[in-house]
């Protein structure tokens, strides 16, 4: 298979890079100053794209590669792939579901604990020597609080299971009600936000869910409410979120994603009631390895004419 050209869109994981290099004819898009020239020269060699949440496969890239057969994304999110174009052209698409569900769900709970129990702020407090002068103030209990989950897919359900172990009551909003679920369903986000203390964004980013967390929803969540985003930055009207936090209209936020990564809103950098993470949802060694193995397995299956393991299209 080492004559098959695979295009990696950006640096994502060295183990993945090494494995792709060992098996295929690997092209690294970021190493070429003129992408246009590079693509023109090599367009007939490239049959696969490996992208991620930063750079996927948009219409322009797909059109530039006439021999493209498959897009294997190193993520579960598909928002950086032009799915319509792939479908039109009969290009297969795979992602990395399930293997990262645990890590991302864990992170949602970790963010909740970080925000409510001020773990990061406390760590800073001790490091700065302030503990010698005064005790840190009380933090807020997590156990038993009501958790609202936006999107009860694999990740949303895993978050619910974990929150239940903390004695939390669970409610959710999803595109459709889940028949086998015991959790309380709300038919719209605002009602969900009104009825929970902690709102977790765990749905896919689509045209419908852009800015689904807007001023109305944030106001419904309220000054004691906490927003946790482990979905995509674009789920949240970030400008509105920032002003709500600064004005105390929202109690706190735990964010792993932002509208303009790697930039987190500057006004948040000094706040004590937020936790800001650099998009690390699935960033453990174990999960990154599992995701890489899945990408490789999908590519090998495709080029061996075997069924794809985790096809989207």
């Amino acid at each position: 298979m080492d004559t098959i050209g695979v295009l990696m869109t950006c640096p994502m994981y060295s183990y993945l890079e090494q494995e792709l290099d060992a098996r295929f004819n690997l092209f690294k898009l970021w190493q070429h100053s003129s992408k246009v020239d590079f693509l023109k020269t090599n367009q007939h060699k490239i049959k696969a794209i490996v992208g991620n949440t930063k750079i996927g496969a948009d219409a322009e890239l797909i059109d530039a590669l006439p021999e493209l057969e498959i897009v294997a994304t190193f993520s579960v999110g598909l928002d950086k792939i032009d799915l319509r174009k792939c479908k039109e052209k009969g290009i297969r698409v795979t992602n990395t579901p399930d293997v990262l569900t645990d890590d991302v769900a864990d992170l949602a709970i970790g963010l909740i604990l970080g925000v409510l129990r001020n773990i990061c702020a406390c760590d800073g407090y001790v490091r700065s020597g302030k503990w010698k002068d005064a005790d840190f103030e009380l933090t807020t209990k997590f156990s038993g609080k009501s958790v609202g989950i936006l999107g009860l897919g694999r990740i949303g359900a895993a978050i619910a299971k974990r929150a239940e172990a903390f004695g939390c009551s669970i409610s959710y909003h999803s595109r459709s009600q889940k028949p086998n679920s015991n959790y309380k369903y709300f038919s719209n986000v605002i009602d969900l936000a009104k009825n929970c203390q902690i709102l977790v964004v765990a749905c896919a980013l689509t045209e419908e869910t852009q800015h689904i967390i807007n001023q109305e929803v944030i106001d419904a969540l309220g000054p004691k409410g906490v927003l946790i985003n482990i979905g995509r930055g674009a789920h949240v009207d970030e400008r509105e979120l920032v002003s709500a936090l600064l004005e105390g209209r929202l109690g706190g936020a735990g964010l792993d994603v932002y509208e303009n990564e790697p930039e987190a809103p500057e006004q948040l950098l000094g706040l004590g009631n937020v936790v800001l993470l650099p998009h690390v949802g699935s960033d453990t060694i174990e999960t990154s390895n599992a995701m890489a193995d899945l990408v490789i397995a999908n590519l090998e299956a495709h080029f061996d004419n075997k069924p794809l393991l985790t096809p989207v299209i």
Partner: protein
Amino acid sequence: MENKDHNQNHQSEDLPQVLLLKPTPVMAVLGEHQFSSNKYQFLKAWESPLPLYQFLTKYANSIQAILCSGAAPVTDDLLQLLPSVRLVVAASAGTNHIDLMACCRRGISVTNAGNVFSDDGADAAVGLLFDILRKISAADRYVRQGLWVKKGDYALGSKLGGKRIGIVGLGGIGLQVAKRLEAFGCIISYNSRKKKTFVSYPFYSNICELAADSDALIICCALTDQTRHMINKEVLSALGKEGFIVNIGRGAIIDEKELVRCLVEGEIAGAGLDVFEKEPDIPKQLLELENVVLSPHKAVFTPESFLALSELVVGNLEAFFSNLPLLSPVMDE
């Protein structure tokens, strides 16, 4: 509960007296009214102009109970001065500041926080464990310092699911830690004074063996003569270079000097610490490390826990003075 002004100047003859040497942290935060009752009144040593010894001698015969906390330990010497004391109420889960053997000898009952702190304590332990595994505080600092923009992606962390967790002390808090971590797919084992018949987690009587078989140790036990420096060089060595430790018990359960050395030299992978041997002084080397998360002894400092504790303290005192069973007696095991 009535709001009552407890003033040293008019002590009602018929209300029994509860000695307070110093205000407890919970009382300082919630206010004394949260602890008041028509069944007893507080005798506040710090409000008296008398030196302590004289104060205690003056009121010795009328003090039947003591409400104490870490800053005001109950020693045998103190009990010697107060022959009418029959109850010591601890405003904490820990009772290491109370001479339990002296209380036992003198037929004095002791109550503690029971299970009111279990949820919050467990949440804090899980939060600290998660933080060191997934580098949450460190990554948060990374973003705030503008390094995500300047230097790119942060380092990978370690997955929580599938980790083997050794819980040291499977009491109220330890059990709640286990329940939570199971939902994350962790594998639970424990060490305790005695095997618990009602759980199916593997029991290790030897803490070194538990450490050797664990990816992370979570210290949830009480500080006693047996557990002082129980986590020593041998245990830390058994835990190993890939191992983590979380302590929400008492600082002195761990040989702190040895712990710091292991962290600095990379002999264990990281630590999440809420308690230290000499609070609020903590070893300077810890402040520089990226693989530790530090918390200023507030694992249970939430309004909910504090309110629940105040209700339990009042409940125990009222039960005592009504000759009813105590709500959270410390059992001698």
